[in-house]
């Protein structure tokens, strides 16, 4: 009785005419322990179908769109910080070199002297760098004279 129905179902299963419900009926039949001898080779097929549906995707999914945005945001933030840092450094450096205070020699001769010395030192320093490069030219001149007498 049951066997008749199962055989009929298998027949239409092979023709591709069973519905999902009927196919489930077959799966249930073949998952039970008492399967007719001549149908036993279908058992592994239907149990494979049930088992194959259990397989899961185990790896974590990386969604790069979101990640890329984060990376962009971070790079923007980092460049802003770097620029700000460089700007402040330059600003401070500039301020350091010309921290001259305006004063008149009558009111505060000591400070005026200090400031003047500082200014002169600065001028001589710059002059020295200028002279240094001129020295190279002298060197060149000397060696040229040695060769072309």
């Amino acid at each position: 009785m049951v066997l008749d129905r199962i055989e009929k179902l298998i027949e239409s299963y092979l023709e591709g005419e069973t519905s999902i419900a009927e196919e489930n009926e077959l799966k249930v039949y073949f998952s039970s322990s008492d399967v007719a001898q001549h149908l036993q080779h279908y058992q592994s097929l239907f149990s494979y179908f049930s088992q194959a549906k259990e397989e899961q995707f185990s790896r974590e999914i990386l969604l790069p769109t979101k990640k890329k945005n984060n990376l962009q945001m971070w790079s923007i933030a980092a460049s802003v910080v770097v620029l700000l840092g460089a700007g402040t450094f330059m600003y401070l450096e500039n301020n350091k070199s010309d921290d001259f205070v305006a004063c008149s020699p009558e009111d505060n001769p000591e400070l005026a002297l200090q400031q003047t010395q500082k200014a002169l030192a600065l001028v001589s320093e710059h002059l020295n760098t200028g002279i240094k490069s001129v020295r190279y030219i002298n060197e060149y001149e000397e060696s040229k004279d040695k060769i072309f007498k």
Partner: protein
Amino acid sequence: MVSPFKDKIFRLAKRLLISTEEAEDATQEVMVKLWIKNEMLSELRSMEAMAMTMTKNYCLDQLKSKRAGNLTLVHNNYTDSQASLQQKMEDVDSWSWVEKIINDLPEQQKLIIQMRDIEQYEFEDIAKTLGMSEATIRVALSRARKTIREIMTKTHNYGIG
């Protein structure tokens, strides 16, 4: 929010590409594409159909580009089938034997078996995903099922005789 069918994508990809690793890569790829398209898709149902179509297309492309002349992959496939052959020798009746039979079917039949017998999609949905008529799918499915039965009966009889 696309996770409910990531397993289905993975299983379909594995059916076509066979290697688990490649199937994982394919799933990753399809999920990213889905994620990008996310806003356009309001209905979950249409999204699933789209996911399946994308998986199918991606895997078939993948297979095509490999067949276009990648010798190392041919070699990989060879060792792969060798391994499952060994498994087969160990226990003939196990599921891996059925898997081997299904994996030897042509791509289209593999797709249909996977979607119908394993994922249990209605013919209407399969037709939409594969861009074929329901009648064509029934015919292909019937052919695939009969091929599987034939090979199984053969080996079954070998076992007895």
